[in-house]
C-alpha cells in the first residue's frame, strides 16, 4: 500500500478545548507530520455546528489519504456527534463514489480509530471500534486498525508528553503506529497490545477516581450529594 501524503485527524471529544482524545490524536498526528505527511485537524463538535464547518469536514475527509479518529467512549459506543459525522461522511462519499470499475483501480484512503474510556479495562471499547470498522468499510475506506485505551483519566486532558512514564506504553504504541501508518501499513498488533496495557493497577485507579469525583463535587460547591436521586 502506498505511503500517505496527507493525514486528517478527527477529534471526537465534545469538549471545546483540551481533552484526552485530542491529546492522543495530536500526539499521533505530530509523529506523522515528523515523517513528512501533511496534517490537518478537525474538531467534530465544532465543525458540525455550522454548514461551513460541515462542508469543510466533508471536503477534508474526501481529500485525505489517511483519516484518524480519536474519541472517548460514550455509553458503550461513539458520542452522538461522531455518529452524525459518520452518517454525513458515508452519505457524501456514496454520492461522490466512482463507478466500480474505476474504484477497482483506485487505492482507498485508510481509516484508523483511537478509543479511550474512563474504565481501567480496554474491553469496554471493543464494540465502539467494531462500529468504526463497519463505518470504514461502508464509507469506502480501508480499515487500518483500532487502538483501545483504558484508564483514559490518566491523561487528564493534558498533552501526552507531559504525562511522562505513566503513559509510556501509550506513547510507544502511538510511535509504533505512526511509523507503520506513514509507510502505508496498518496499525501493528504490538501497538494494540501496548495501548491496552494499564499503567496503573485497576484498584488504585478506581480509588483515585472515586476520591476525585468527591473532591470535584466539593470544589464546584454542589449543594446536593453525589448520590442524589432527583427523579426518584
Amino acid at each position, binding site marked *: 500500500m502506498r505511503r500517505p501524503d496527507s493525514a486528517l485527524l478527527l477529534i471526537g471529544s465534545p469538549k471545546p478545548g483540551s481533552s484526552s482524545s485530542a491529546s492522543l490524536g495530536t500526539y499521533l498526528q505530530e509523529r506523522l507530520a515528523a515523517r513528512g505527511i501533511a496534517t490537518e485537524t478537525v474538531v467534530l463538535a465544532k465543525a458540525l455546528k455550522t454548514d461551513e464547518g460541515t462542508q469543510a469536514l466533508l471536503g477534508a475527509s474526501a481529500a485525505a489519504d489517511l483519516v484518524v479518529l480519536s474519541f472517548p467512549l460514550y455509553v458503550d459506543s461513539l*458520542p452522538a456527534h461522531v455518529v452524525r459525522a459518520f452518517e454525513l461522511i458515508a452519505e457524501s462519499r456514496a454520492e461522490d463514489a466512482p463507478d466500480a470499475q474505476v474504484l477497482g483501480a483506485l487505492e482507498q484512503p485508510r481509516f484508523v480509530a483511537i478509543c479511550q474510556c474512563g474504565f481501567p479495562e480496554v474491553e469496554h471499547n471493543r464494540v465502539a471500534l467494531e*462500529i468504526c470498522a463497519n463505518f470504514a468499510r461502508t464509507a469506502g475506506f480501508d480499515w487500518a486498525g483500532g487502538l483501545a485505551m483504558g484508564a483514559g483519566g490518566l491523561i487528564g486532558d493534558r498533552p501526552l508528553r507531559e504525562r511522562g512514564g505513566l503513559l509510556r506504553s501509550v506513547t510507544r504504541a502511538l510511535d509504533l503506529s505512526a511509523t507503520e501508518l506513514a509507510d502505508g501499513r496498518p496499525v501493528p498488533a504490538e501497538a494494540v497490545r501496548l495501548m491496552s496495557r494499564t499503567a496503573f493497577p485497576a484498584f488504585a485507579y478506581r480509588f483515585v477516581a472515586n476520591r476525585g*469525583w468527591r473532591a470535584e463535587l466539593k470544589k464546584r460547591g454542589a449543594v446536593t450529594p453525589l448520590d442524589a436521586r432527583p427523579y426518584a
Partner: protein
Amino acid sequence: MTPTARPTALLLDGGSDDDPTLALVHHAIDETLTAGSWDVDDWCLRRETIAWCAGCFGCWVKTPGMCVHTDAGREVAARVARSDLLVYLTPVTFGGYSSELKKALDHLIPILLPDLKKTGSDTRHPQRYEHVHDLLAVGTVPAGEADSAEARTFRRLVERNAMNLRPSHWAAGVVEGGADDREVRLAVGALLGQIGVASPHTVMPVSLAVTP
C-alpha cells in the same frame, strides 16, 4: 415495577421520516403494549431538540443526577428513571444506534453514579436508582442483512448496554427492510415475549434475528 401502578414503557424512536419498516415496528410495539395495559411514553427524537452531551460531567459533580443544560436532554434521565421498560428503535447505523437515538442515550449518564466499582471482571458505574427497568432494542437493516456484520455488532452493543444498565430482562433484534406488517408484528411479539411481555404473536419470521 410497582405492582399497583400501570407499568410505563419509554419508546425512544431514533428513526428518520423515511424508514417505513421502523415505523411499522414502532406502531406494533406501541399497540401491543397499550393493549397490555402499559402506559406508553412515546418519544420521537427527530422532532426534539437535544444538544449533544457536552462531556462536562456537571450531571455528576455540579447538579448530581441532573444534566446542567436545560433543553430536552435533561428529560432523558427523568423519563428513563420513571420507566419500567426502555425501548430503543433505530436504523442499525454501522452496527450502532443512529445519531438521533444516540443524542438521547448520551444523556443517560446522570442515571449512573460516578463511582467506579468492580463488578465481575469489569469496572462499572453503579446505578443511581434502585428501580430496575427492562430493555428492548430493535433495529432495522436493509433486506437480506439480518446476519450482517452490522447486525452482529448491534446485538453486541445492546448486550454491552445491558451489562451496564443491568435490566432484569433484555432482548435485541433486527428487522429487515421491506418486512410487511404481519412479519413485523410477529417479530415484535417474539421480542416482547423474550422480556416477559405477553403478546398474541409468538412465531418468529425468517426476517428476524433475535438475541440472546
